[in-house]
């Protein structure tokens, strides 16, 4: 069974006075299998972020369905949705979204505290993750005291600590320099090796080339997808580049 299934998803935004309608997603269909590492690519305005919001249950589709582990997100009530999100999804954002009032440690604990986990248990879970992410020494620091890459690794730790079924990453390298980006992508790859399913939205070819599969979205539809197969990262990078060139040139017309 697929861990994530998206069926004919449609999202239409209505402007405030109902005069204009903007179709963000027209008809999106895809599946993500357990242990997959999927990158979603597309230009600004192609509907990537809308898609991610719907996957995260932060927004509701106009029509169509999202099934996580076979469960339809639309059927979860508003009260349960936060808990559902906490238990099943991990988030990594472009701007880290760490709370500046917490130390990194407390930031990472946040989802567990919300789930009423005792301190000793949280602490036990944190140590291996912090070591793996190389932030074990930084735990007592505040977000403003550490670099962007370190902040993002703390955010990854926060996403991992709940052992979610799916990690959703929204432009995770968007605010990082190339070295920090490389490091983060390496981390994602190794986390994925350990069996973690990841869906990452990006418009960075370098970031996408580390994934197993790349979905291209254009004008609110899945336009194309590439499987890694036996390709190396470099080979995949080339393939993505040429696909993007075609996409940009407006070729195909679907």
């Amino acid at each position, binding site marked *: 069974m697929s861990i994530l299934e998206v069926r004919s998803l449609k999202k239409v935004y209505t402007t405030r006075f109902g005069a204009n309608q903007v179709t963000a997603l027209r008809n999106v269909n895809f599946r993500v299998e357990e242990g997959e590492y999927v990158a979603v690519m597309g230009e600004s305005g192609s509907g990537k972020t809308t898609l991610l919001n719907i996957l995260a249950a932060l927004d509701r589709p106009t029509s169509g369905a999202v099934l996580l582990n076979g469960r339809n997100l639309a059927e979860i009530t508003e009260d349960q949705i936060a808990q559902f999100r906490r238990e099943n999804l991990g988030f990594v954002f472009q701007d880290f979204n760490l709370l500046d009032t917490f130390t990194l440690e407390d930031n990472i604990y946040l989802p567990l*505290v919300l789930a009423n986990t005792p301190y000793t248990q949280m602490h036990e879970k944190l140590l291996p993750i912090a070591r793996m992410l190389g932030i074990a020494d930084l735990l007592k620091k*505040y977000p403003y005291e550490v670099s962007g890459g370190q902040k993002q690794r703390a955010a990854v730790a926060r996403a991992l600590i709940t052992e979610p079924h799916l990690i959703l990453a929204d*432009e995770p390298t968007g605010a990082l320099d190339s070295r920090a980006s490389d490091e983060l992508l390496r981390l994602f790859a190794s986390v994925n090796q350990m069996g973690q399913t990841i869906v990452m939205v990006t418009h960075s070819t370098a970031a996408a080339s580390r994934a197993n599969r790349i979905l291209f979205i254009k004008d609110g539809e899945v336009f194309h997808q590439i499987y890694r197969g036996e390709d190396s990262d470099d080979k995949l990078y080339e393939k993505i580049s040429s696909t993007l060139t075609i996409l940009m040139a407006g070729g195909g017309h679907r």
Partner: protein
Amino acid sequence: MTRGFYNRLAWTGIQKNRQLYYPYFLSGIVMVMVFYIFHFLATSEVVHNLPGKAVLPYLFYIGEGAVGLFSIPFLFYTNSSLIRKRKKELGLYNILGMNKRNIFSVLFRETLISYGIVVTVGIFAGFLFSKAAELVLVNIMGRQAGYRIYVDWKGAFVVLVVFAVIYLMILANALWQIHANDPIELLHSDMQGERPPKSRMLLTVLSLVLIGAGYGASAAVTAVEYQLAQIFVTAVLLITGTFLLFICAFVVLCRVLQKNRAYYYQTSHFVTISTMAYRMKRSGASLAAICVLVTLVLVACSFSVSFYAGSMEVLQRTYPYDLSVRVEIPVEKIGNELTKGTCTAGYRSGIDTIIGSVLTDSGQDAGQGGVRQADGCAVHFANMLAMLVDGRLDLARDMRDTWFTPGSGLYPGWTEGNEEIVWLHVLSLEAYNRLCRTTETLGEDEVFVILENGEYRSDRIVLNDSGAGVNVNPAAKAVPAITDVSISLDDGRAKDDRITAHGCRNVFLVVRDLYDFMGGVEGSAAYAQKNYMAYDWEYYWNLSAPEEALYAVYDQVEAHIRTGADKTACYLRLERGENYYALAGAVLFIAVVMDLVFVAVTALIMYYKQISEGYEDQRRFSIMRKVGMTGKEIRASINSQMLTVFALPLLVAGVHLIFTSNIVYMMQKMVVADNKPLMIRVMVVTYLLFAAVYSLVYVMTSRTYYRIVNRASGSRYCGGNGS
């Protein structure tokens, strides 16, 4: 063209920030209005015709000055919260190519517009409400007022000038704030990472020490008028302590709670405690300001209400008779005066004739404003200062050799060690029985000693240096107190130097024969020297008559007693009472108006606090939502935080009020009456009333906060790249 452009820019600047600007205007308008009203009342003809015309205008001028002075920090505060929020916008102007000078000119126009609106609307509102204020004031004093409505042009002019100065200062401050920053900084001024608040243990301890010292100093106040410095110190201690408490102590508390893992890592505490530390750091000063203002309001309110409510009692106590006349008798003439009334017979017959004539007049014109019933009583007193040593009256002490110095103005108190200076009134048993309508008797060498607020504990009084004295009649404890005696009580005298005997206890000494007791002319002369003794003849009348008749009697009596060569004084309770009511009424009126202003200020600080908190928390709560906090949890957390933050000043103010109530009590005791239950009742009612108003303001302003926070943590996802 550019001129018009800047005007338009300034105008849109105000329009776009109306959430911030409208309350700013409102606060300015309230200030201008109150300022104008006070000025109007200070110069109003109606007020000048009120009974308290001697003091009222000055009180209003003081009120006007206070409002003017208070507007400065207040408007500064509102303006700087406004500028802080607008820094980003101004930074953008700068980046888009406006230089600092252009920005200055936009700000100048905005200030000009603000000033124009505030002054125009404020004066207009002041004009509308000034008449209402006048009517309320006149009503408090139970008088009639005319209904002439007019604009106080001079007052309007004063308002224009004063507030022009204030707004110029505000503009200068705003310019200075902008000038100090470069554009990029301005642009990001609301996004700078905030350092975590430090746990400042030392300052916390200091704050508690200061507040404790303030409470101690307040409890030690025994006589307000002599300890103004101490009261000032109390205020400074409490204000400093309160500010430190709010800035440091609550952060420390949060930090301590954070150390306790079992407590801290719970869903309901986790977010609240950690955010609270920041919130207290940011809001500490504002909350402390709110707390101080609230305390001030409560103290002022408690005092003025109990002053007003107790004024009836104090009038009765100070002026027990409708009409009182006092003549000072020279010591050398006292012998003949006491036996034959040589000095006062003329006054007495004159006064009797006057009262009799009014009685006769009214007899012809029954029920038409004459004296219907008259009841007079004349008494001789020897009034002097004396010493209570270990509770025993000692007339042998030469007051010139003690720590007491007449005419030096203020005294630190009337008690030092085991000694207490009292204001002693010696009168004969015969006079006492007439005054109190009793038939007490005294044995040979016996006296009654009657203390105000207390019981005479010794069984003797000392009369000379060898320790000889007389016994106190054991019945002294049971004889009626002379509560209804003597207009001279509150006006102590030391020879020719008038001294204020406020706070000095009155003691009555009832003796068998006044002349003998005082040792004749010789003894009296000695007392006059060493105890600042003076003989007074006092003549009291209770007259049941309408106001006009009483005033007529008073005028005639006053004219009559002035014909003699002696030192005389004459009081009509009605006339004194009107002044008194006028004073009490005006104090109450001013206190209520000032309290309204303070409440408005508190509301405004709260409003701005809610707005800035809202923007600060917007991002935070949207993150929490994404990480998996339910809307319910977020709301619960917000509620508990906001409630704690805004309940704290009210609670601390309540504690302050309890521990400083001694000062209010002493003030009440000084000007009104010793009536603790009344004061406590007034305080409790004031506090509850204020708490209700405060909660209402909180509920109203918190809506703004929720609106701002919900804008982010609503159903919309607010990621960094809203593509």
